[in-house]
């Protein structure tokens, strides 16, 4: 096992990895930018090295500075966490070239999975379905019609040059295809100056479901089941759970085996996640992409399987076999995670940097908080605004939701605006409680919850009274508690008493 590991990351994930280091007797070394010198991940490390100024391009993405830091403290491995350099094959190669161990898969596997086309090829090679679609642009309406018949409706027309929904049309039957084809062409030409279209089979009400896999250097490749990550905004996950509310053992086995096949095809080692789109009605699934690192949402898998994924990453990277086999993986109960962001949910999730003036994190049965902040922490403008992850476990999904509601109510953060109020509404939402999740959830949720819930008059009044008292305490010293014993009065009395005794 390693003696000393440098963690090339910040925030909650750096703190999480430091915890695993401590349990394994590894000395953790943090890196930090000039903006992060007082941050939590630095305070809980044994050693910490500044790698550059605040912008991540000059610090947390500065490969030379990070490797120099690892050499300077005499570390024997680097853990990249997630984000930043975690999926940078060049970084993995540079770490190895410097004589250090990179805690993650091989640079080759990272490269294969890093490109959309080679990743899709690897999936096809493994016999795993990808969303059927044309590779080249359609040349005519006749070709579009023939392809649509081949895939079966519904299909999606997409602008070859496009993005952002422009030149995109969902077509449910052959009768609608011609007009959709023509409008999509016009839109694509107007938006991108290129009218060429391609066609994909449409996945209706798609769920975003991913499979955690783990592979060691002894030929073991196992899966740890699925995570449901359908609740997303701006293509970013905000709530994840394990198992999926539509979990059935057969589907989990089929998706798990598909993910393991892909892992074997690319000779994968360490922790990885294979993402799929799942059609809600038909339960058909399609490979989307693979993340060659630890995921943000790994705690839900840990809570349900009981394994410590970061600990296993260290085991695998130091050449030891995984501590479990596929037969030893059992899923118990239900876990849900909320990503707490410094963003204003009432204002289109606008970032809300600032200083945390008060923080009280929830605790108690079934609660896990992976936090990157403390009282007084500064949430700066330079980095991702996620400040913590709240994960809960219950025997059933209903019990997990009860605990989540309770934990969200306990959670207090002041000084910055967070997504906590949004989550408090989500846990009471009928579709969420029923487990009817797909990637369109937040759009529908926003429509259902458009009207703000008015607080009780009593609370509004008490807020005004508290503000008035605070005003009196801080603005008008003379007003404070008339008749009370002030410090000056007490001191004067004590002094008077001393004089009296002496005489």
């Amino acid at each position, binding site marked *: 096992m390693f003696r000393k590991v440098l963690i090339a990351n910040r925030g909650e994930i750096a703190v999480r990895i430091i915890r695993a280091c401590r349990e394994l007797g590894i000395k953790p070394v943090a890196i930090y930018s000039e903006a992060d010198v007082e941050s939590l991940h630095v305070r809980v490390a044994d050693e910490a090295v500044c790698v550059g100024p605040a912008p991540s391009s000059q610090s947390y993405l500065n490969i030379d500075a990070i490797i120099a830091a690892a050499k300077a403290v005499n570390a024997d491995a680097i853990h990249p966490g997630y984000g930043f350099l975690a999926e940078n094959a060049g970084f993995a190669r540079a770490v190895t070239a410097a004589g250090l161990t990179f805690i993650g898969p091989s640079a080759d596997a990272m490269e294969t999975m890093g490109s959309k086309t080679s990743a899709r090829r690897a999936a096809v090679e493994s016999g795993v379905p990808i969303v059927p679609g044309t590779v080249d642009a359609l040349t005519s309406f006749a070709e579009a019609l023939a392809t649509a018949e081949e895939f079966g409706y519904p299909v999606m027309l997409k602008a070859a040059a496009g993005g952002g929904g422009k030149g995109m049309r969902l077509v449910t039957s052959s009768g609608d295809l011609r007009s959709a084809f023509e409008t999509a062409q016009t839109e694509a030409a107007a938006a991108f100056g290129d009218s060429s279209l391609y066609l994909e089979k449409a996945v209706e009400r798609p769920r975003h479901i991913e499979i955690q896999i783990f592979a060691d250097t002894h030929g073991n490749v196992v899966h740890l089941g699925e995570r449901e990550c359908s609740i997303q905004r701006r293509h970013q996950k905000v709530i994840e759970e394990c198992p999926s509310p539509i979990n059935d053992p057969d589907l989990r086995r089929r998706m798990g085996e598909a993910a393991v096949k892909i892992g074997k095809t690319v000779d994968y080692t360490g922790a990885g996640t294979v993402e799929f789109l799942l059609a809600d009605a038909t339960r058909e699934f399609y490979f989307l992409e693979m993340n060659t690192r630890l995921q943000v949402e790994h705690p839900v898998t840990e809570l349900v399987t009981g394994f410590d994924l970061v600990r296993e990453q260290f085991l695998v990277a130091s050449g030891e076999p995984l501590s479990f086999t596929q037969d030893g993986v059992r899923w118990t109960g239900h876990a849900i995670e909320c990503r707490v962001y410094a963003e204003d949910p009432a204002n289109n999730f606008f970032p809300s940097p600032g200083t945390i003036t008060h923080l009280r994190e929830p605790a108690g049965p079934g609660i896990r908080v992976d936090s990157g902040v403390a009282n007084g922490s500064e949430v700066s403008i330079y980095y991702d605004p996620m400040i913590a992850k709240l994960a809960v476990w219950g025997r059933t999904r209903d019990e997990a939701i009860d605990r989540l509601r309770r934990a969200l109510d306990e959670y*207090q953060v002041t000084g910055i605006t967070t997504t906590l109020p949004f989550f408090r509404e989500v846990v009471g939402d009928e579709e969420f409680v029923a487990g009817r999740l797909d990637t369109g959830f937040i759009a529908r949720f926003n429509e259902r919850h458009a009207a703000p819930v008015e607080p009780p008059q009593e*609370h509004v009044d008490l807020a005004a009274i508290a503000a008035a008292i605070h005003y009196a305490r*801080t603005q008008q010293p003379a007003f404070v508690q008339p008749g009370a014993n002030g410090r000056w009065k007490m001191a004067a009395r004590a002094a008077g008493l001393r004089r009296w005794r002496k005489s």
Partner: protein
Amino acid sequence: MKLKAVIGDREQDLNVQIDGESVRAEIDGRIYELELREPEPGCYLFFRDAEVHECRVNKVQDGFDVSLHERSYPVAIIDPKRLRSDQDADRHHHGLAEITAPMPGKVVRVHIETGAAVEKGAGVIVVEAMKMQNEMKSPRAGVVISINVKPGDTVNAGDVLAVVE
């Protein structure tokens, strides 16, 4: 202590009497008899009969931010004894509208020129913070009388980016 409290866009009369740990407050005719404790600075614990209400008060730019029961309330306190013509009053009377930065960030684009006419709600300046670009909109229709920033400038929360008349 007679004050006015502004919550949301409602201005209310507020009379608060503090006697040791007892508080008697009247707000728009509603009366509250409370017991008060202060477990830490800025934290006010009210007991109303057996009900417990924990309030946390933070001073913010133009008032206070009060958190209680999983919500936060922006409250402005107006003290008639200390009333003086502040900038706010000036701004409204002279028909000036300032476009301010809601948070620290970097100016990436400026869509307006001094002297140009703008519509209400038109995007005028784009500020980037936390990997997101945010478009500042003109709060009113009018003419741009000053622009205080250029692309590449770093701004702090509350900085006046431009003024529209």
